[in-house]
């Protein structure tokens, strides 16, 4: 089986999704392949900061300038993915005055609106800031939801005729006569749009393209290897620790030169503490360690003391796709530029047909996509304008007033408000088009059935993808109360066994991050979850999941069963045993208590 496309984009992170949208809007036939879900790699594992550029205003002014420009673009085109929280660079007594001054000056040089607040003024904005802070600089930092952003880009690309394939891993880059001509992919669950279904046979496909774009970030070296070129990405890991509530509503940065554990980002119902910066060899296999979590809490509580006692619900790690030209040779990953690089392998390696894009950060994803799309269009001799900075993403078009969702869709207002925040202008389509009761499936994040089904339509039976689209199971209970409800929603569209597999996947994925938060209240929560799922539902010892069949006849069939259960648990085939021991009794409750003590 093979197919053709103008441009093939590898990688379903923010960059790849941005590229495929850009190309499709320019009228090219574009295909995106991603080995996991959209955002599977680095994009889904970031702290959700929409940079004002303030963080780079001293060390890397060109990045800072790009950040503030793109920050403004995203506020316009991705309204429903962005929350403009504002940000503070907070100076503690031990932090350098000179650096504070340079930060302020740097912001102004880069066109980043910056204003100095006294300690009292800063605490007025954020009452939980430490009592001994000196002052702060206010900048237009924000929070961005990377999942929603990628899904919106991909959806718009599809609307413009692109093909987007998730769960489609590139297994080879096809090189013919010294030129990249396409890739071979393995579709995990068959070649069926982007809907993943558990248990389907995988299929191979060769996709031929006029140009291949390697937008795999920290994985770019692996794709490079398949093509026989060296792309020396330097993956660097960072931890992010999620708190149970928003201790702050503003992005809080420590105002000092680069360092670990210096930012708190309010994100949806939570806060995310970050981060560390440590080079790793393999972007998929690196240690995730408790000291990193401890470092977040201990250091950031210098800015927000209540974090010491606050509850964390999980931690996760991401790998930055850092890149620098090999001749720079930085020793410390924190010294590596956050800028992005476009590596045309024709110029660089004498291998036409493929370009890699490495480095960069989510805030500038659209600009990166524009630059590489310009480049590819030039290579292919296509003359088309980039429109991604002007055209709003689906969900962000015409979204100006928050209506009374309670009346309109029969939702309690907090749920309606949260739905509206997530869906943006799609709310009419998603909730308005829903027929039947629309209860909240995930109560922590107020995700209703209509929204879950909208996500299932796009994501197939993959509940982790449903989670990313809706935030269901991402709140305090970490899916204790809703994982199985989400699985229930898959039936009858999918078979029960598919729903069960999907539930197991989601439950395990949640557990992976929860393990980094297991003390205090969250350990109590984990035990409750364990009891609900193992004791009440018996999911850990489910006879449906094992090869061995249960001898039902060996168990009590009720006090009024006409014959007692078989005396030996080993008696006969299950059917016989039941016939033997299982003639059922009619219920006796409801007919008085005559046999109360029998």
């Amino acid at each position, binding site marked *: 089986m093979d197919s053709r496309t103008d441009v093939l984009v590898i990688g379903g992170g923010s960059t790849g999704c941005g590229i495929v949208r850009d190309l499709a809007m320019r009228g090219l036939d574009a295909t995106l392949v991603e080995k996991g879900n959209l955002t599977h790699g680095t994009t889904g594992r970031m702290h959700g900061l929409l940079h004002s550029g303030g963080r780079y205003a001293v060390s890397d002014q060109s990045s800072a300038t790009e950040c503030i420009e793109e920050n403004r673009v995203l506020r316009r085109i991705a309204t429903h993915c962005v929350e403009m929280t504002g940000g503070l660079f907070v100076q503690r007594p031990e932090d350098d005055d000179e650096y504070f001054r340079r930060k302020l000056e740097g912001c102004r040089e880069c066109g980043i609106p910056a204003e100095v607040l006294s300690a009292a003024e800063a605490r007025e904005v954020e009452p939980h800031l430490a009592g001994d802070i000196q002052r702060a600089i206010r900048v237009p930092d924000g929070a961005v939801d990377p999942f929603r952003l990628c899904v919106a880009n991909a959806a718009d690309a599809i609307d413009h005729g692109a093909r987007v394939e998730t769960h489609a891993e590139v297994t080879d880059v096809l090189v013919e006569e010294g030129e990249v001509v396409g890739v071979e992919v393995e579709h995990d669950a068959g070649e069926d749009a982007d809907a993943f279904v558990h248990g389907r046979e995988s299929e191979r496909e060769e996709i031929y393209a006029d140009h291949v774009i390697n937008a795999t970030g920290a994985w770019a070296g692996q794709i490079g290897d398949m093509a026989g070129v060296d792309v020396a990405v330097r993956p660097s890991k960072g931890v992010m620790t999620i708190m149970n509530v928003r201790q702050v509503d503003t992005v809080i940065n420590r105002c000092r030169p680069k360092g670990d554990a210096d930012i708190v980002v309010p994100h949806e119902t939570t806060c995310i503490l970050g981060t560390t910066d440590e080079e790793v060899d393999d972007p998929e296999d690196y240690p995730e360690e408790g000291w990193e979590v401890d470092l977040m809490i201990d250091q950031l509580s210098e800015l927000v003391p209540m974090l010491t006692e606050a509850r964390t619900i999980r931690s996760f790690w991401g790998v930055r796709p850092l890149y620098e030209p090999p001749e720079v040779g930085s020793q410390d990953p924190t010294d590596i530029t956050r800028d992005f690089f476009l590596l045309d392998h024709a110029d660089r390696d004498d291998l036409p047909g493929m370009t890699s894009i490495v480095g960069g950060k989510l805030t500038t994803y659209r600009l990166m996509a524009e630059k590489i799309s310009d480049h590819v269009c030039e290579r292919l001799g296509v003359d088309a304008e980039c429109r991604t900075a002007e055209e709003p993403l689906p969900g962000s078009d015409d979204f100006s007033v928050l209506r009374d969702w309670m009346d309109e869709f*029969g939702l309690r207002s907090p749920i309606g408000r949260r739905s509206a925040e997530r869906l943006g202008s799609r709310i009419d389509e998603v909730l308005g088009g829903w027929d039947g009761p629309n209860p*909240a499936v995930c109560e922590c994040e107020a995700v209703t059935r209509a929204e879950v089904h909208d996500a299932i339509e796009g994501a197939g039976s993959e509940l982790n993808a449903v989670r990313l689209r809706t935030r269901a199971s991402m709140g305090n209970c970490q899916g204790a109360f809703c994982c199985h409800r989400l699985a*229930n929603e898959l039936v009858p569209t999918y078979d029960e066994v598919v729903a069960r597999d999907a539930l197991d996947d989601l439950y395990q994925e949640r557990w992976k991050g929860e393990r980094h938060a297991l003390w205090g209240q969250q*350990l109590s929560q984990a*035990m409750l979850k364990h009891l609900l799922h193992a*004791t009440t539902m018996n999911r850990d010892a489910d006879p449906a999941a094992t090869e061995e069949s249960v001898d039902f006849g060996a168990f009590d069939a*009720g006090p009024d069963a006409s014959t007692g259960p078989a005396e030996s648990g080993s008696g006969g085939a299950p059917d016989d045993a039941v016939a033997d021991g*299982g003639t*059922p009794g009619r219920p006796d409750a409801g007919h008085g208590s005559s046999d109360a003590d029998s």
Partner: protein
Amino acid sequence: MPIRDDVLVVGGGLAGTMAALSAAESGAQVRLVSHKKSTLRQASGLVDVLGAVDGDAPVSDPFAAVDRLPDEHPYHVVGSEGIREGLRRFDDVVGDRYRGSHTDRNALVVTHGGTVKPTARYPVSVVPGLASAAEDTLLVGFRGLTDFDAVAAADHLAAAGVPFDVDGATIDFPIGFRDDARTTRLAKALDTDEDGVRRGLADAVAAELDGHDRVGFPAMVGDDHGPEVRAALEDHLGAAVFEIPTGPPSLLGMQLEDLLLDALERAGVRLSTGNPAVGYEAEAGEVTAVLVDRRGQEVPYHADQVVLATGGLVGKGIDSDRESITEPLFDCHVPHPEDRYEWSATEAFGDHAFARFGVVPDDDLRPTGPDGDPHFPNLRAAGGVVGGADVAREKSAAGVSIATGTYAGRRAGEEVAP
């Protein structure tokens, strides 16, 4: 006048209640102090004794399987006779509201997740649905209820190999409550037969019945008037009606809580609820009082014998921070690995050390220090606060609470007996 009793039980869950009842039996004056609502409302209302050991097939005879439990399991302290003693007392407490006492065997009960699980005692409304009875079954769910999907559960049960045909039907509850109305609201409507809802529900189910012998609903078939509601539905349908235990809010769990409260009242146990126990007083190595925080004031509750039944991690009888696991009231020793990453396993349903965290009992259920000696001669522990059992995977939570509660209460009562 100081507050003084013979036996003071701290904790109002299943273990604390059984301890108080057992101590009261000996003629002692017993007081039970509890802080928050017990965790029973989050539990299914089933009384598991032992349903799984080492992930093997479900255990049909829990008494025969006790020997296979690890050495530090609290069942080894009370022995099979201790388990039986606890169950006898429990059977007395719940009377005709529960079944299962006619046999040592576990029953397999349908769970709201759609499989079966072994349990030793079950509410009477669960009886007609037992999975070893080979009767064709219709499961009924409601469109607004997300916690139980009848079609998924029916297919799941079939995959579990149940010896009967099973189908699922999803219907609208006859009264249009708000979309996320809970089982408690539906039960209340059935209790009062609001707008003739019993008949309306029976008609809706009858349209789907198609010759099935029995009909299972998630536990919502009435609350205070459950038996009457069930009888009415059975009458209309001509089929047996049963309930499937659910997670929170669990009507069956709350009903059990009510039964236990009634029993405490009947037994003359003094109840002090709503305030947390925060400390203790000791003299000559014995506990003399437990301090209860009443609006900021620490009030001593004096007693000769004390039973600690404050629960496990969920009930906050066991507490933790990033470095350690503690028993916060008496600071009893709770063994645990130093590295918190060894507190849990990487697999979600793995062998989690945290599930077994708790105090270490001696052969008289007294919590011991690192040296193996009891912290206090007159302090015993019962239920979730006792370590050594992974009650979730073993399906033994209620059994451990009942057996250790009964044992600790009886021993406390014996110690103060004249």
